[in-house]
Structures are given as C-alpha cells and as structure tokens.
C-alpha cells in the first residue's frame, strides 16, 4: 500500500554518507529512499508516510555556492514528487543548520510545507526562524532519536494541513509572530489561577514572555594604559566607501574589521556609515566621529596609550537581534584577544 505522505529529506555530506570534513565541498547529490538518519525518520513516520528520496550537499559547497546549490537541490527535491521537505537535524553545526534553513525557506517559498531541527545556538535558528519551522534539538547527535521523532510528528501535521498552534505548545522556535486567539476563561480568572500557581511554587507559563537581558558587568579598567594595545570598535556601520563586504544597515548578521596600520586619519569620501537608525551625514563628513583614529594616534604619540590595534572593528547596532549581537561581541573579543588587545574604545551612535 502506498503511504500517504511523501517526504524528501535533506542531509549534509557527513550524515548523507559521502564523507567527513574532507568531503565538505561535495556538490548536491540525490539518493532514492532514506539515507543515514532517514532510516530512523522513516520508522517514526510509520504508516503515515515514506521518504521518497534524499538530497545531500557538502557543508562548504552549500555556503560557497549557495545560489547554485539551492537551485539544484530544489530541482532534485521537486523531481522526487515529495509533499514535505525535512532537513537535518543539524544540531550545533552552523554551516549545516544554515543550509537546512535556506533550503526549507526556498521550499516553502515554492508553496510546499517543510521544516528542520537544530540546537538553539545554531546560527541557522536566528537566520531562518522567522520563515521556517525549526524544532529544537540537543547540541549533539546524542539527541538524534528524539529530534527525528519530533520531525516526523510535525511533518505529518504539516502534510495533513492541520492548524499549527502556538510555538510553546507545538515546540518550534517562535517565528517572531504573535497571534490572537480566544480562551474560554477571561483574563481575571487566568490571572488568579496563575497567581495561585506562582504562590504554590507550581509551574506556570507567562502569556507574554519578556526577554531577560542579563546585566553586562563592565570589565575592570586597564591597569597600565601607557603600555596597553587599544582597539577602536564601533557599532556605527562605518565601512570603506561602497560597503565592499555588504554590512547590513539594520539587523546585522556580521562584524567586520578594516586595516588602519600606517594610517593617521580616515579621509572623507573613503569611508561611509551604513546605519539605518541614525543620521549618517555627520559621520560621512568626518569618519572620525565614529572611529576617532586621529585622536587615538595623538594619544599614542603623547604616551597615554601604548599602541593601537592594526584594525578597527565594526558592526551595525540598529534593530539588532540580541543573540546575534552577543555572538558578534564574543567573536570580536576573541579576535582582539588573539592580537593582544587589552583595552577598547567603543563608539556608539
């Protein structure tokens, strides 16, 4: 008997059986039926559905040839005649998670249901959660079995066109959308119920979770500034004219650094601010308003600071995702530490 739901499964080169990191540049490939974790996924689908085929791509190949990889994977997936795309699970693998998110996004744009699963810290979550159902997994393959069971259940729901409820109830990463719904109890009754649970130490779920921005403790002051290497850091979006690395004007996904070794000043017209949250005219007229290289060089000459880092660091601080900004801050700090930077001048807009 033919099983009702046809699934196409996406895997990277490792889970697709092509090879490890040495095969990360493997181009898109198609295999009939399930491969690797797909076998267990098929078991979880039971009589509800089958995996008609598997599309596979190397992690590096996908990232380096995203447009081409997406087109070929989409073509193969469409040719398989599948109804639903399941990608991953990708756990904590950043390139894999990014590919899973991008492919499901493309598949959904074509009007067909799809989903993926990965760990909350996978950058694919923040990149694609707004467009794609992403189920949470543990950070390693140890959580494979539960992830596959969750994917199978959710895939069946999507395929059958059942209504998908709130993120907390259904278990996916919320897509940034809040929708109204109606409950049999009014707010007063629910409030008293919640208060009684809170008072009794029983579990309760706030109907409007607010983010808890943890306090950032300031680092202790530099003890020996006259001998310290200092970095210039800015969230003003100041980049070389023409924005060669395509820094975003808002919701930045990356940070960049540009060389200042041997430069005494940042000339007007050679730099510009890519920032959608403030008036950039002043910075464009004089880039030192964002990156005070002129003043910093003078301080070095005067012996107030030891030396300057050979690059300045930049991102765009505008309508940003907090988690992405935490990552950016961490990555910048790691990079600076590797260069022996001991203090930072951070200019904000």
């Amino acid at each position, binding site marked *: 008997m033919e099983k009702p739901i046809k699934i196409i499964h996406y895997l990277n080169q490792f889970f697709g059986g092509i090879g490890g990191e040495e095969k990360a540049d493997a181009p898109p490939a198609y295999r009939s039926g399930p491969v690797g974790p797909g076998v267990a996924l098929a078991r979880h689908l039971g009589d509800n559905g089958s995996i008609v085929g598997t599309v596979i791509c190397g992690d590096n190949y996908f990232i380096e040839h995203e447009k081409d990889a997406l087109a070929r994977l989409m073509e193969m997936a469409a040719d398989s005649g599948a109804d639903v795309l399941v990608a991953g699970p990708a756990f904590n693998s950043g390139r894999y998670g990014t590919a899973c998110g991008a492919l499901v996004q493309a598949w959904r744009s074509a009007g067909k249901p799809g989903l993926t699963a990965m760990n909350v810290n996978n950058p694919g979550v923040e990149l694609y959660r707004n467009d794609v159902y992403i189920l949470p997994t543990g950070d390693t393959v140890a959580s494979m079995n539960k992830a596959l069971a969750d994917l199978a259940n959710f895939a069946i729901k999507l395929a059958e066109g059942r209504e998908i409820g709130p993120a907390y109830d259904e278990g996916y990463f919320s897509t940034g959308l809040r929708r109204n719904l109606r409950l049999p109890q009014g707010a007063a009754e629910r409030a*008293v119920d919640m208060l009684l649970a809170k008072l009794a130490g029983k579990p309760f779920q706030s109907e409007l979770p607010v983010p808890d921005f943890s306090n950032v403790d300031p680092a202790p002051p530099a003890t020996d500034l006259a001998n310290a290497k200092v970095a210039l850091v800015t969230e003003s979006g100041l980049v070389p004219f023409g924005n060669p690395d395509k820094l975003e004007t808002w919701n930045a996904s990356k940070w960049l650094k540009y060389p200042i070794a041997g430069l005494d000043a940042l000339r007007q017209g050679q730099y510009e601010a890519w920032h959608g949250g403030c008036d950039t005219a002043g910075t464009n007229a004089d880039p030192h308003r964002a990156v005070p290289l002129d003043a910093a060089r003078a301080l070095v000459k005067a012996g107030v600071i030891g030396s300057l880092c050979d690059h300045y660091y930049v991102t765009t601080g505008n309508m940003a995702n907090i988690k992405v900004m935490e990552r950016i801050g961490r990555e910048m700090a790691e990079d600076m530490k590797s260069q022996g930077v001991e203090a930072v001048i951070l200019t904000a807009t």
Partner: protein
Amino acid sequence: MKLRLESYEVNAITFGVATRLESGVLTISAEEIRRAALFDNSVSDVRVELASPGDRTRIIHVLDALEPRDKVESDRAAFPGFLAPARTVGEGTTRRLKGTALLASAQLPEPTGGILEFNEGIIDMSGPGVDYCACSNTHNIVLLFTARPGVNNQDFESAVRLGSIQASRYLVRAALEGAEPSDVEVLELGAVDSSLPRVAYVDQVQQQGILVQTFLYGQSMESLVPTLLHPNEYFDGAVVSGNYRSMIKAPTWLRLNNPVIRELYARHGKDLNFTGVILCRGHHDDHQLKERNGYMVANLARMLGVQGVVMTLEGTGNTWVDFMQAVKALEQSGIKTVPIVHELGGAEGKDWPIVDYVPEADAIITGGGADRRFTLPAMERVIGGPDLVFSSNEAWGQRQPAGRSMTLTAHEMYAGFWMMQVNGITARDY
C-alpha cells in the same frame, strides 16, 4: 464591611408612560429620565434612545457608561462625592438594574488634542464587534446630551456626568418601587482559613487631566498617592471614570462590575484570602514619581501582609512605566505579582508587543494584540450622530459615516483593550 447587593434583572427595555420594572421588562418614561438627566445649564438638551443586545445598532460618541445603582440608606448614596457627600460606601443595601447600562453620548463642544484628546469608541450591539466593546451585552439606555452654545468642555463633561448619575438614581428609584430582587448577594470579606494565601488587587487607573481622568469619591485622582479601598466601595461607585480615551478606558460600568474584584471575591475563603484593593494612578510626570508610586504600592501591599497581587492597567504608552515600576517594587518586596496587560504589536503581530517591561514581570496575563484588524458589518441604526472620527494612529482624523461596514482595530472600540481581556482574547508566540 458588609454590603447587601440586590440585583433586579432586566431582560428587555421599552419606552412607556411610567418607569417601572415588571417581569424583567424595564419600561422607561423618556420624559422623566430626560428631566433627571437635564441637570445643569451647560446642557441644552437630552434625548433618550434604547438599544438591546442583538440589535443591528451602533452607538458612538459614548463618554461614560454606568450601571444604574442606588443605595437604600438615606444618608448614603451610590457614586459618593457627586450629588451626595463623600461618605464611605460599601455597606448597607444597594439596588442595581442588572443587565442594563446607562450610556452618555455627546459631542464635546470644544476641540480636543494631545494627551487630553477625546478618542472615539464604538459600541456594536451585534456582529463581531461585540467581543471588542463594553455594553454590547446589556440593555442600554443612551442619554444623548447636547451642549449649550459657548459652554466649555470641562463644564459640559461635568454636567454630563452629574446628569447621568441623577438619571441612574431616578431609574432605580422609579423602576423598583415595590419590586422584588431577582438575586441578593451579601458581600463581605469574612474571616477565612488562615493558611490561605493573602491576595490583593492593584488597580492602576488613568489620570492625565480633564477628559482623561478618574474620580475617587467625586474627586479627580490627580494628586492621589496609592491608597487602600475595600472592594465593596467599588460596588457602590466610589471609583468613577471621566476618561474619554474610549478604547483604553475602563468605564464606570466596569468599575462597578470589576472582573478581577469579582474573581477574587468568588475565590475568597476557597483558594485565597482577598484582603483589599490598592488603588493608584498612572502617567506620573517623571520617572522619580513613577518609581515612588511603585514603592508606595508595594509598601501598602506589605502592610496588608499579602503574598500575592493581581494588577490591572488602564491606559497605554507612558503609563506602562508606572505599572512596571509597581511590578518591580512588589516583586522585590517578595510579593508574587501577576499583571494583566494589553498588547500592541502592529497589525500583523510582528512588532514588539508592549511598551515597557521589567525582568520581574515573569507572570503576565495578556488580552491580546489590540492592533489586529477585524471588520464590522454595516448597521441599520446609529445612535449618537451621523459620523465618527477615527483616532488610532494610522487612520487618525479620518471621518466617515458611522453606519458603514469598516475594517478597524480595538483602538476604535469602546473599552476595547479591557473587553478583549474580559472576553478571553489573548495572544501567543507563533
């Protein structure tokens, strides 16, 4: 404090020669209630119209809404401080016309603007709008007030309020002559099992100035610091709304029938020990005053010895900060807090839903996103005037025939934000 609240249930309303309640039918003498409401020289005329649930009727330009109530005792009055001394209420016997509302509809004589602007609030008696407005499920006696030429907003709106209270008193006294109550409640916070958690209600009302204010015992709450009330005082109209930010307001009807007070009363002695109401205002002028208000609320709660509070918020924007400062102060005092809020969040629900929050607000109940759109059908009859003027941001100032079908949000509905909460509307992350 013990209150005997007699309900006289009304199932239908109609005009007649004399005002009386018989077999659930409230007959009203239009001329007599008109005379009661036409109280002050600022008002040149009052007309009366009736509307009942299910009618294809839309009511607009509504200022306040009362539930007709009156006290039996000769030395006490409902809505104390207006037309009667500000003597403590919440004791003795009160009679109410259950299932009715007395609505005051009027066009203010002078233009309004800024934080003291009048905002339209629509009441639909049928269709999908009923979930988003107050008084769609009551038999409504609508008093249509006309301002005398040259009168200012302040004198006029005061005359409307006093006229409404006088009409309310008239209705109860005339209709209930010799009538028997359909239901009697004895409302008292009696002694309960001492192991039950002590719980208070924190009621933050809107107070910005003339046209956007709240009265306590007849006096505007402008200079009020947080204070303690017995819930029974609410049942007798100690708190009266003079807030014409119609979508965010809690009209006096909702103060008399406050859903949180009703819920806490219903559970008193069973699940909790209801200890009292802390009344405070929002929209303080600066952060220090907002913080001060929060700590004073928390201090009262501590002195009551409560372990938990439920909070409600009237208003939006600026006043969120006052509200959240109170949440913070309460939680930091070790008092478990559940705030009830409305959300904004844009038409699609993609924007940040609330104006302010503190990490201590870890148990929020929400009435859902008030920016979401819905469509009201055309109505056969409009009470209150031919046109309405939209007041929400994107449609601000647009004038259109009031009886038309229209797509709008709770920002255009009478007590829309509160009624979404009352009617079980909420929101979740998707």
